[in-house]
């Protein structure tokens, strides 16, 4: 399928902001949104009054516990402006810059504030996990009393079985990402751990141990995306959003092979076509594949075509995905290290690519010269892929 997309304006990112990610923050969702937006605007050299449109994203209302959360959290950011909130499950955080892209690319808006917020801690008792009980099919799945981790464990085991990958190979992703996060000022779960620490951590649902999983978090992130004309006015160092992709597979996750993420392959193909990328293995210099679980980074690298199917564990073991490797992945520290306030975690990954391409990632800056980068997220019942490709 060739996307029939009319691009009127090139789109650039000119600023970004990110709050701390923590298990509990005192600030309200409105305040977290305002803080992240204020940071992004400061970096872009703009004020709220300069913004034409606001595009935001957040996970289900049932986390923050305000059942019109989109309109609620943007109060300090979007009053009097066109605003839309987008939602595609865990894929939301990367879908927010995707949706902001078409606001600018179409010529509709010139300066867009791009925001993602999550306050999972409000769903206080018994645990924010309980919200996830409501993503299952209420008639044929929910009566079995599933835990969210079931579905990931099922996918992980299918992937291990199909590709001949061992748990200790997968644990290397957690070790790498948590270590990378030691250099991230927002990080909640940064740590120096070993493969054995992962394997010996609490068994939740075999094959998933506690340290295979990202934490529950509060946080917010924001970007400013503008047209080419404004990008050239505002900065000498714009980062261009050159490709966007998104794709949906069926909710019936029990009816397809979980070993390979076809929906992501399709989303990536869309983004690559727009960006003119023919060989992602050669052309993508740095990537932030979505890593709420460690095996997911591997699964997603394969779906993104950053390595052949079933080869991501090998590539990781060889050290190629380290910050000084040929294909640095999750240099931010990812969700495993920085934390997972759902939508905010996705935008954090897009922001990391922005900072990496600008050369502003500080201690996290990858060793090689990077021109093209990619951020990706995934969500719902193993069915949504969202991809954004950026260039310096």
């Amino acid at each position: 399928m060739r996307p029939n997309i009319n691009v009127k304006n090139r789109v650039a990112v000119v600023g970004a902001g990110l709050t701390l990610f923590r298990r509990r923050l005192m600030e309200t969702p409105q305040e977290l949104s305002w803080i992240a937006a204020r940071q992004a605007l400061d970096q872009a050299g703009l004020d709220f009054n300069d913004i034409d449109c606001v595009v935001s994203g957040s996970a289900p209302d049932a986390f923050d516990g305000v059942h019109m959360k989109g309109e609620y959290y943007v109060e300090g950011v979007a009053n009097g402006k066109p605003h839309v909130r987008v939602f595609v499950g865990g894929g939301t955080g990367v879908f927010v810059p995707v949706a902001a892209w078409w606001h600018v690319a179409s010529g509709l808006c010139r300066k867009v504030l791009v925001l993602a917020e999550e306050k999972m801690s409000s769903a206080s008792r018994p645990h924010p996990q309980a919200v996830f009980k409501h993503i299952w099919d209420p008639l044929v799945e929910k009566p079995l009393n599933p835990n969210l981790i079931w579905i990931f464990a099922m996918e992980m085991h299918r992937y291990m079985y199909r590709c001949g990958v061992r748990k200790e190979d997968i644990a290397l992703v957690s070790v790498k990402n948590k270590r990378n996060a030691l250099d991230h000022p927002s990080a909640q779960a940064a740590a120096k751990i070993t493969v054995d620490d992962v394997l010996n951590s609490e068994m939740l649902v075999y094959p998933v141990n506690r340290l295979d999983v990202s934490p529950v978090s509060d946080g917010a992130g924001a970007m400013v995306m503008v047209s080419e004309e404004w990008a050239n006015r505002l900065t000498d160092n714009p980062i261009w959003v050159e490709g966007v992709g998104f794709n949906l597979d069926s909710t019936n996750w029990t009816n397809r092979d979980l070993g390979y993420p076809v929906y992501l392959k399709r989303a990536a193909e869309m983004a690559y076509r727009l960006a003119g990328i023919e060989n992602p293995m050669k052309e993508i210099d740095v990537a932030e594949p979505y890593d709420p679980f460690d095996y997911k980074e591997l699964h997603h690298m394969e779906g993104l075509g950053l390595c052949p199917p079933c080869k991501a564990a090998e590539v990781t073991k060889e050290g190629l995905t380290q910050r000084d490797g040929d294909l640095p992945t999750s240099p931010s520290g990812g969700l495993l290290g920085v934390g997972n306030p759902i939508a905010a975690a996705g935008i954090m990954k897009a922001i990391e690519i922005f900072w990496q391409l600008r050369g502003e990632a500080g201690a996290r800056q990858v060793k090689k010269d990077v021109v093209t980068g990619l951020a990706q997220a995934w969500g719902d019942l193993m069915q949504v892929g969202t991809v954004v490709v950026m260039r310096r």
Partner: protein
Amino acid sequence: MEVRMEIEAYEYTAGPLGDRWLNEIKQGRLTAAKCPSCNTIFLPPKLYCPKCRSRVVDLIQLGKGKVEYMITVGVDDEGKELDHPAKVAIIRFPNTFGGLVHYVSDDVEEGDEVLPEFREERRGSITDIVRFRKA
């Protein structure tokens, strides 16, 4: 097929300034936020100014409020008839942006000046104010 919401309880924090504002109410004082940048006084207090969107850190004491609109409510949130109809009002304060929604005593009419009536036992909540009564 019956399905229940499994979240037993949400617990909302009020943010750094909201926390201080509710603590003031706990002490029996009704305050509002004041923006250090554009001097806007506003309710309810938040970390950012609703006018100029600067960061806000200060609270100031409020005096009398004024009932702007008022309704009389005959049923509760499940549609059951109340024994005693309740009066609910939007209360504004002089030179203050925003306001409060709260109960008012039976004799209050639109346009009346009002003051908060605090409970004896307070925990730091908007419901530490029982109602607003005629000043």
